[in-house]
């Protein structure tokens, strides 16, 4: 299934400056794996050392948070959009 992944501003530097990419994948987990194997630098921003999605990054399929669907097993339909939405606070650069 062809899926579009929206890359947030904060992570575009690690995805060749692109704001979105397209992959073929059957589930969210597969799409994210394709993303991080194509852009290796993204992996540590999206995943912890033990392979879980970081808690301050939310993943949506269309407008639904995957935590309320089947998480990484959420199936993809043709034309779906996966959004990666990290926590941002703006301003103070610590």
């Amino acid at each position, binding site marked *: 299934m062809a899926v579009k992944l929206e890359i947030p501003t904060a992570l575009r530097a690690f995805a060749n400056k692109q704001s979105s990419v397209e992959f073929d994948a059957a589930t969210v987990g597969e799409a994210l794996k394709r993303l991080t194997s194509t852009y290796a630098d993204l992996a540590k921003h999206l995943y912890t050392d033990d392979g879980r999605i970081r808690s301050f990054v939310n993943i949506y399929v269309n407008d639904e948070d995957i935590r309320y669907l089947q998480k990484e097993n959420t199936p993809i339909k043709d034309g779906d959009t996966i959004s990666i939405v990290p926590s941002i606070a703006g*301003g103070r650069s610590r």
Partner: protein
Amino acid sequence: MPIVTGTPAIPGAARKLSREEIQRYSRHLIMPEVGMDGQLKLAAAKVLMIGAGGLGAPLGLYLAAAGVGKLGIVDFDVVDYTNLQRQITFSTSDVGRPKIQAAKERLAGINPLIQIETYETRLTSANALDLFRPYDIIVDGTDNFPTRYLVNDACVLLGKPNVYGSIFRFEGQTTVFNYPGGPCYRCLYPEPPPPGLVPSCAEGGVLGVLPGIVGSLQAMETIKLILGIGQPLAGRLLLFDALGMRFRELRLRKNPACPICGEHRTINELIDYEEFCGIRGEETEAVTTGIPEITARDLKARLDRGDDLYILDVREPHEYQIGKIDGSHLIPLGDVPRRVNELDSSREIVAMCRSGKRSADAIRFLQQAGFRKLWNLKGGILAWSDDVDPSVPKY
């Protein structure tokens, strides 16, 4: 979750509008959605703005203009020259003044008929609940994670809506948290990013107009809540991409397991938010881990003596263009792992950046890679400009 309508609007004040108010707010009054009843609701509303910065600027300007009867502003900061690029409540002549003073003057100038309370204080677990209590709506215009969690928790514990807005470079997020039955900030992000993992100083920065747009959206949501009109953003996260000029909407769900607003509350009082965000740990870490430092003056002295030092600048190319130390070599922090073989571990390496934080990260990496002759330029190029060469611009 259905889109929530019919908000807990503010009951109108038990008074009439003056002639002055009728004239001032005529463009509100001629709209059936507002009318005199709506304007009286605005007059009776008490809104507390946390932060008088980039988001707080348009927020305050529009809430004052709209006639919100009581506006509170919390900010302990002083107007800085670099604020003027986006904090449009302030004039150049305000640089150096407390933000709340300058903001109060500007807002009172727009609308002398409203009450403006200022709180020149840092928001903490010790004062938040008392500060929030007299207000109906809290608007979060802050710039750091610990305060966002603090504002959220205080709003949940007190039962007040939290009009949230946040920005990063070209992107913004906005929603209304803690609307009755709606999710809170912890439902969306149970934990903050550990410090150092979110993009670094170099990747920060912001187009000044971005908080102008997001802060205005927050003002719009606040006014809608007061008037009880339209669909508030409760349960929806509005994402704004300025470069693509696109708005997207994501569904926000209440997390039944949320520790503060969920079915089994485990957080009953405000906590230490710096610790929660890992910042306290980071402060002590900088002291105890061995990052060898060299001051700008000492570096200059050693260079003048003819010492063979390799100065590694880990900033971004556009920062290097602003000003640099002669003879330094630029390898942006993100490229250091890939280009480490360009460095000679038999030479002494002085790592530097803007303020000393990124270069400390570079030093840590190089230490792990086996380098031993390392120094971190304390205070970065800012310190070099202050103590050695004022012709190098600070930024």
